[in-house]
């Protein structure tokens, strides 16, 4: 292995400003064991392309170390030498020291062999890592149980997997290198570094541990951010840091995975290659349960645009990002588009024709800001947000009971109506107890049931961390393991359900919390929050209070990000982190500075949801048009334009009822109740079912389907229910037909009521033609016009 001395020395040794100097990282190389290697990185000190594979390398003494054309240095014999890196007219000399070859430090299975198995995907879910193993050889998935894996290799298979006397003839080695038939093919390159390490490990007696090998505590990737041209390349250099602080190059041993291979990918050597599509990719680097990411940006060439004015920090961060990517933002949405969008997003309700007419005709320069303020005070705001959080907190009549579902809905509605700070809401959920039918969130715990489900649901809702994977194995793309999972669940072990004398159920959180057992080791795992130290519980406390303090503390690394991202996703149709409740280092926000500042803004405003919402809605980014420009049509994640979204089932049903003037009658509910007010998620409704009302079976917002379907189209076009609304006796169409209004006035009225705008000239002409052709059937034409508007995409979508 090698050690890196400060690369800063080289970085600082900059030549004359007029021409770029060549920089090699690291400046010196130490290789301290037979299978070590060092990837060099070569670049100019000025922004420019990666030169690692352009430079020419020579070793001053190939008996000590060799170097290949990719800049990989490999030890050959103990001693010192230099690698000469020639680039253009310049050359840089990199001192190399090789040691530890004659008496190498013994290899540790856990720290050095397991990573080979993982890198070669031997222990992946599709191969030996699956529950039943593969052809009799079973490994723990992603190596979460190193001891069992060691056992499998060394002891099982009648001992034929390893031959101490002839290491290279071990079945393990011959299979891995593809010298005997192997279903998985050749996974380890013959005579390569990994092959050598495997045989040396067997030669040394296949030790599980080696005292001299320190565990890795972190990994780093260089560079962590890179802007590449179309089809550009970049060599990565990955360094592991062990518990003694020693840095070793693991570039050839780490695994690489891109989250967007159509934009940029990386091969097993850490060589990143951009494709010919502009955009962004995160290259995920994994080694021994540690992760690092390199963000690759591939700008669209040749796009320039004038930065629009900035209303607040949101605009600044988005324009910065768009400028970097070469994506021009769309125009500001016109008043009609803004009006309809902000009504639907904020209060889940369409503007009426009168409201639309008034807003469109107002000449006031601050009318948008005033409308935002007014909407946040409407009662529908609380209705709509209570509905949204009823989905998240699983207010399911069947899982709780009617009284409990009403109680939770009322608590939610009141919380949003009085604009309760969100951290306080979270604390009330986290520490809820008492009767499940009293106004409050206690029933949430009834739905969740076990400490495991409680902890992973709470984690997903309030921390945005999906820790579910770690119940059975180490999270494949995060640092969370089974320890973390059961440690978190330990906060909920004191929660129980009891029957009250009144017959209602109650949630109790007694002082009886105990630490849960690790399913593999069967040892208690002390309760602790994610990445936090083990707390001490004062005798008799509800453990959840300690967790609530941690969750809502100012320095909690997740809570404000998760909350800000969730609200952002509601208004912008997509989280900065997406999926919105899957926050992790390996799933970075599409705009990190914006994510950071939004979370800070939420904390600074003391979790005042309305204030925070006001900031979002007043930004120019929120008010951009959904019409795209040539350079932003393909952009899905940088908020360069508004994205049309399907309306939630309840909102669409209310919109149709309001527009047609035919309110929906819900069985057992008073007349005039709107779908967004109905707490009963099991109320039979074909409409709500096909338009994706969730069954509230999980805390994931993804449960609400926004997929279009044929049944939806059939229902809107051809159902007796919608037809009846359009033709309702007391409905809007009938009233207009019976009025003295001219066809043009009727068109205005129906356009305003459905899509909040006046018809264009062409649309008006089309409507008038329809009227002209049927003077004796005025009512039918009005109905047909309303039908057409209800089936127009501009109506069905929030854009």
């Amino acid at each position, binding site marked *: 292995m090698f050690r890196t001395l400060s690369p800063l020395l080289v970085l600082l040794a900059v030549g004359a400003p007029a021409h770029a100097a060549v920089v090699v990282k690291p400046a010196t190389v130490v290789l301290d064991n037979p299978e070590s290697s060092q990837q060099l990185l070569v670049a100019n000190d000025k922004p420019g392309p990666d030169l690692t594979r352009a430079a020419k390398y020579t070793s001053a003494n190939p008996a000590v170390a060799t170097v290949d054309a990719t800049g990989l240095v490999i030890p050959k014999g103990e001693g010192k030498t230099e690698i000469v890196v020639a680039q253009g007219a310049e050359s840089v000399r990199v001192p190399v020291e090789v040691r530890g070859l004659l008496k190498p430090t013994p290899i540790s299975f856990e720290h050095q062999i397991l990573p080979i198995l993982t890198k070669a995907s031997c222990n*992946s*879910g*599709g191969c030996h890592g699956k529950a*039943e193993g593969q052809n009799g050889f079973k490994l723990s998935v992603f190596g979460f149980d190193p001891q069992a894996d060691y056992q499998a290799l060394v002891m099982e298979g009648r001992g034929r997997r390893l031959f101490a006397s002839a290491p290279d003839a071990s079945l393990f080695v011959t299979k891995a290198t593809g010298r005997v038939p192997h279903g998985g093919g050749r996974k380890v390159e013959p005579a390569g570094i990994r092959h050598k390490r495997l045989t040396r490990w067997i030669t040394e007696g296949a030790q599980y541990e080696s005292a001299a090998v320190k565990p890795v505590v972190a990994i780093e990737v260089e560079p962590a951010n890179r802007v590449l041209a179309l089809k550009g390349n970049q060599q990565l250099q990955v360094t592991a840091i062990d518990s003694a602080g020693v840095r070793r190059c693991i570039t050839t041993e780490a695994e690489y995975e891109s989250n967007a291979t159509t934009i940029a990918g990386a091969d097993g050597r850490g060589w990143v290659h951009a494709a010919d599509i502009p955009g962004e990719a995160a290259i995920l680097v994994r080694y021994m349960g540690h992760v690092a990411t390199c963000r690759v940006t591939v700008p669209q060439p040749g796009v320039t645009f004038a930065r629009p004015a900035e209303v607040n920090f949101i605009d600044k961060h988005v324009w910065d990002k768009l400028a970097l990517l070469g994506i021009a933002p769309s125009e500001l949405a016109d008043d009609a*588009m803004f009006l309809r969008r902000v009504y639907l997003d904020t209060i889940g309700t369409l503007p009426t024709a009168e409201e639309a007419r008034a807003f469109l005709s107002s000449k006031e320069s601050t009318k948008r800001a005033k409308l935002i303020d007014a909407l946040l005070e409407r009662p529908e705001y609380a209705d709509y947000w209570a509905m949204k959080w009823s989905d998240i907190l699983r207010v399911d009549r*069947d*899982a709780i009971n009617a009284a409990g579902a009403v109680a939770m809905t009322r608590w939610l509605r009141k919380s949003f109506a009085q604009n309760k700070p969100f951290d306080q809401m979270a604390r009330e959920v986290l520490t809820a107890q008492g009767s499940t039918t009293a106004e409050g969130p206690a029933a949430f715990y009834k739905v969740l049931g076990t400490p495991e489900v409680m902890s992973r649901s709470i984690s997903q809702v309030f921390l945005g961390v*999906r820790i*579910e994977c770690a119940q059975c194995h180490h999270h494949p*793309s995060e640092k969370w393991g089974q320890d973390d999972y059961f440690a978190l669940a330990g906060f909920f072990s004191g929660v129980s359900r009891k029957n009250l004398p009144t017959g209602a159920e109650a949630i109790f959180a007694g002082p009886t919390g105990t630490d849960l057992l690790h399913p593999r080791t069967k040892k208690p795992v002390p309760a602790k929050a994610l990445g936090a130290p083990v707390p001490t519980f004062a005798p008799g406390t509800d453990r959840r209070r300690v967790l609530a303090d941690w969750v809502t503390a100012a320095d909690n690394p997740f809570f404000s990000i998760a909350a800000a991202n969730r609200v952002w996703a509601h208004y912008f149709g997509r989280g900065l982190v997406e*999926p919105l409740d899957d926050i992790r280092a390996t799933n970075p926000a599409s705009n990190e500075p914006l994510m950071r500042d939004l979370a800070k803004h939420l904390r600074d405003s003391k979790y005042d949801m309305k204030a925070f919402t006001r900031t979002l809605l007043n930004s120019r980014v929120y008010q951009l*048009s*959904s*019409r*795209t420009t040539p350079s932003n049509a393909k952009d899905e994640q940088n908020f360069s334009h*508004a*994205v*049309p*979204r*399907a309306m939630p089932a309840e909102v669409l049903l209310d919109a149709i009822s309001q527009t047609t003037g035919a309110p929906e009658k819900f069985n057992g509910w008073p007349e005039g109740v709107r779908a967004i007010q109905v707490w009963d998620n099991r109320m039979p409704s074909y409409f709500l*079912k*096909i338009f*994706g009302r969730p*069954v509230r*079976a*999980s805390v994931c917002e*993804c449960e609400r*389907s*926004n*997929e*279009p*379907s*044929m*049944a939806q*189209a*059939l*229902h809107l*076009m*051809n*159902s*007796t229910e919608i*037809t009846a609304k359009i033709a309702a006796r007391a409905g809007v169409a009938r009233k207009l037909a019976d009025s003295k209004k001219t066809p043009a006035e009727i068109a205005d009225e129906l356009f305003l009521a459905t899509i909040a*705008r006046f018809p264009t000239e*062409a649309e008006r002409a*089309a409507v008038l033609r*329809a009227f002209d*052709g*049927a003077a004796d059937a005025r009512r039918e*034409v009005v109905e*047909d*016009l309303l*039908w057409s*508007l209800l*089936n*127009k*995409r*501009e109506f*069905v*979508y929030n*854009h």
Partner: protein
Amino acid sequence: MPARYCDGLSRRQAIRLGASGLIGGLSLPRLFERTANAASDKKVKAKSCIFLFLQGGPSTIDMWDMKPEAAVEVRGPYKPIKTSVTGTLVGEHCHRSAKIAHKYTILRTHSHNDNGHTTGCHYFWTGYKPNFADGTNSRVPVNDVYPSAGSIVSRELGPRGALPPYINLPHPLTAGGPGFYGAEHAPFVIESDPVQPDFEVKDLAALEGLGAKRLERRKQLLGELEKAEKAGTQDGRAATMNTYYQKARDLISSPAARKAFDLKSEPKAMREAYGYSSLGQCSLLARRMVEAGCRFVGIDHGSWDTHFTCFPSLEKELIPHADMAFSALVNDLDQRGMLNDTLVVMMGEMGRTPRVNGDAGRDHWSMAQSVLFAGGGIKPGKVIGATDKLGQAPVADPVSIEDILRTIFDLMGIDANKTYLTPLGRPVPLVNGGKIVESLL
């Protein structure tokens, strides 16, 4: 009368829970994906599959795997009768099917170890054991992660005519949902029973009072209003709505589709041959839908959970209905020349206990069930395997759920090893393990 499982969960409830999304369909990316799949060189024997699912668990020991030598509490009251295949005997109430035993094959060795209804249905339809206990997980859609066999067929093969590729009737199958595939591979559910005189497919019938003139006006107006697009709904997800509108319009206006659903146009004799039962009329409708291009029809037929006094309902309703529906369907497909490329399967999520219980019923028994296969490239006229003297378990070579699914997919030209990633990133092969039942081919 709502059929109830022994766990108190009504079938309706279970069905509703299973329905996370209800409708099949196709978006453009999937269309492209399928074109790519079509290049696969797998041999296709069955273009479509009609699945008669006897939910609750059919008592196949009283139908297809008689034990006349066993004690009366095992063999039950029914006598075996001869069939058109020498040596093959079936229960006396299966006399219609007995006459055509040369057209199908009985697999007597299906066996698995999940004795629950919702869990067993989940295991069968998805090929994966659920992570919930039977009956206790009544509040979630039963297959919210793993896709059902019909959804897999929908995704891999897509439609081949005017009809959606995957249809459930007369309500959704308990675990027939699309799982992580999403709504576009959910079944198109006909929530209406064709045995009812007022049967119709929802939102498909011509609207009363809307003449051709008005339909034309609506079409024209909508077309002109869509042309003048002011918002950015012409691309992305919003644009896929167009695809569905187009398909919905096709469905409404397609004579082939309308004809497929028009059971009344069947001759009376044909309707009678299938039997005026839910299963009978569903099977007839299924044949019509397959003719019109549906790939996978899942018929849900309940009330087979016969714990108490089972024989009266078995001999008066359940067995005759299944016997009529199955034999009529096979004969009908055969006469139309469709049997070769239409696979018919009849089974439930489990069999029933060989020993009749103290309540004169039979309880859950997943260890042994007989399954009927016809058409679609299978070798007919056979009996595959045998159970022990008491019908408790296969004497050799039990056939698993994975084996059955793998065989069905293979017949339909689908590579069962194909793997997709769940939203959490876990690789999920279409079928996890299992082997093709070679003796069936």
